[in-house]
């Protein structure tokens, strides 16, 4: 379970931050908890919107990725600090990342009341409609007289306090699961809204060109006056010509496909003819909506897969395509994000792993042997995590129906075999009894 902790204090030395750090360390067996910084968040100001600034975006990203949030609040003047309130205001103005999030409130203060009034206030604030968090009821953790609570290793001194904190955290873990399960149920059908016809548009969508046209690439290039040939392109860290970029991408030891956030298939690295590819693409397909690239029966699987990547349920899922002689073909679907974490589409990359495995074995003098303890049938690729089974090639650019046979996976759609988890290995690597020395060390001097 992934949690984030926010301490409502921006002082260099904060007992509330100390408390969260203690929890993160001491209970690391139970929860994976990251303590977030709010030091750089500016004072909320309705007339100076800084939602897009890095400090707020950082918190948004971290909160959205977490299963739950723990807030440790000081008490100033019988309420929470302005620093914490300002954070909450940013997170309830143009964006609402706390909406539906399970939250636990704890607090430390110098005085006997141990932040009781601030906690009550915070609960009321978090439950207001703009924030819309789901605060755990019926539990309170108040750390009073906090100046004497920690030893010089920054551990809580009192064993009973630690065990109470542990049981509160245990309850929160259960609460998080409950709330998120309800939420998952409420959103169970969201994937159906995924628009594979690409009827929407994103900032980069090239308007006024028929997506279905066989010469979409030529038309779109003319329309946008696209750079080509020896034109230079400035990249993140480098400058290349378009030709260099093409040579570079076409030399990648894998097939690459880009579909944007509007589910439009924009590009593949055109190394060879479709019938020679591991996952066939043809030049006329570039520009097509994803729906055009798939047979009807595949649409639900594609929608689910795209939705998982769009919502961040997973950033990468891996789909093995077993059953092809002398190959172990993998389809990887990688979500693309801009530097603010916004979803920007999918990179599907397809490659054959077998040559890599064979090379490794040869170099290290080992052979494959069956693993008697393997739990899962590698042929089916079945796994337990996600209830999604998109077929390979069904997510991005894929293929003319004709080549469906060789890539038809044995993944069981009905059982909900997982796409984002590797199939359990059926083989383990064991050393060969007498490896040839040269092949191991590579030390041959001739």
């Amino acid at each position: 379970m992934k949690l984030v902790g926010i301490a409502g204090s921006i002082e260099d030395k904060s007992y509330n931050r100390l408390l969260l750090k203690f929890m993160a360390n001491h209970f690391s067996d139970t929860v994976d908890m990251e303590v977030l910084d709010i030091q750089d968040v500016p004072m909320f100001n309705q007339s100076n919107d800084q939602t897009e600034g890095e400090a707020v975006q950082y918190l948004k990203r971290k909160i959205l990725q977490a299963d739950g949030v723990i807030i440790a609040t000081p008490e100033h003047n019988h309420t929470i600090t302005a620093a914490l309130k300002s954070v909450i205001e940013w997170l309830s103005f143009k964006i609402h990342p706390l909406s539906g999030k399970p939250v636990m409130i704890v607090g430390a203060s110098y005085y006997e009341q141990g932040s009781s009034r601030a906690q009550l206030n915070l609960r009321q604030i978090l439950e207001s409609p703009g924030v819309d968090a789901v605060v755990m009821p019926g539990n309170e953790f108040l750390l009073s007289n906090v100046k004497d609570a920690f030893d010089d290793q920054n551990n809580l001194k009192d064993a009973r306090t630690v065990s109470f904190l542990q049981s509160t955290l245990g309850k929160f873990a259960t609460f998080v699961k409950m709330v998120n399960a309800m939420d998952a149920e409420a959103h169970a059908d969201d994937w159906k809204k995924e628009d594979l016809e690409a009827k929407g548009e994103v900032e980069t969508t090239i308007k006024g060109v028929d997506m279905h046209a066989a010469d979409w690439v030529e038309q779109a290039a003319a329309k946008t006056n696209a750079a080509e040939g020896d034109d230079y392109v400035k990249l993140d860290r480098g400058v290349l010509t378009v030709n260099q970029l093409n040579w570079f991408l076409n030399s990648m030891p894998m097939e690459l496909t880009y579909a944007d956030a509007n589910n439009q298939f924009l590009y593949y690295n055109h190394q060879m003819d479709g019938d020679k590819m591991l996952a066939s693409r043809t030049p006329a397909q570039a520009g097509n909506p994803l729906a055009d690239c798939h047979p009807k029966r595949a649409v639900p699987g594609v929608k689910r897969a795209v939705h998982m990547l769009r919502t961040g349920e997973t950033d990468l899922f891996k789909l093995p395509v077993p059953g092809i002689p002398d190959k172990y073909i993998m389809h990887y679907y990688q979500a693309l994000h801009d530097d603010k974490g916004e979803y920007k589409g999918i990179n599907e990359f397809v490659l054959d792993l077998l040559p890599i495995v064979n090379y490794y074995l040869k170099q290290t003098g080992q052979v494959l042997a069956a693993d008697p303890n393997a739990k899962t049938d590698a042929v089916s690729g079945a796994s337990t995590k996600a209830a999604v089974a998109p077929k390979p090639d069904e997510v991005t650019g894929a293929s003319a129906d004709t080549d469906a046979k060789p890539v038809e996976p044995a993944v069981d759609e009905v059982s909900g075999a997982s796409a984002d988890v590797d199939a359990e290995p059926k083989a383990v690597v064991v050393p060969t009894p007498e490896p040839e020395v040269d092949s191991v060390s590579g030390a041959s001097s001739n």
Partner: protein
Amino acid sequence: MHKFIAMVGTNSDESTNRKLLQFMQTHYADQAEMELMEIKDLPVFNKPESLQIPEQAQAMAAKIEEADGVIISTPEYDHSAPAALMNALEWLSFHIKPFADKPVMIMGASYGALGTSRAQAHLRQILDSPELKARIMPSSEFMLGHSLQAFDDAGQLTDNQKVAQLDSLFGEFQMFVEITKKLKNSHAATYQDVRGMDWTKL
């Protein structure tokens, strides 16, 4: 004539709460002197170990000390007072006590129908805490809902009923200021207690 500080409870450039206070400033010009006080540009309160308070906060404190009373008009953000206002009050309670025994009237304006009822309750609770210990006028509330539609182009409150209600509350506040003065004199000892209050020494 009483001298009041009218504290704008937001750092926003456009504010219906500021408009409300500006309306009162002219509307009651013959009854009291009202000076608008802005809270923007204060740094986020971070309990500095140096105990150093920003100059702006010091200047604000001095003005509040001098005034006969403070009128605060608060927006409502997330069912509570805005961070910017909470922030000002943190600075104004950090080893200085300008609000101790100071008569305060709370009001507020919001875009919605409820007119800051929850933010006002929150603000009352804050001002009542030991380091602030303001004398908040009891049993009085002025809530201006649908505040974006409440003023005409000349900045006048258009709803006559609201104006009448405000008139009577303002008169009440003037009396409250006088009563509090008398109380303060007879309770000089409590007053000293509050002055000595310090969270770091508890």
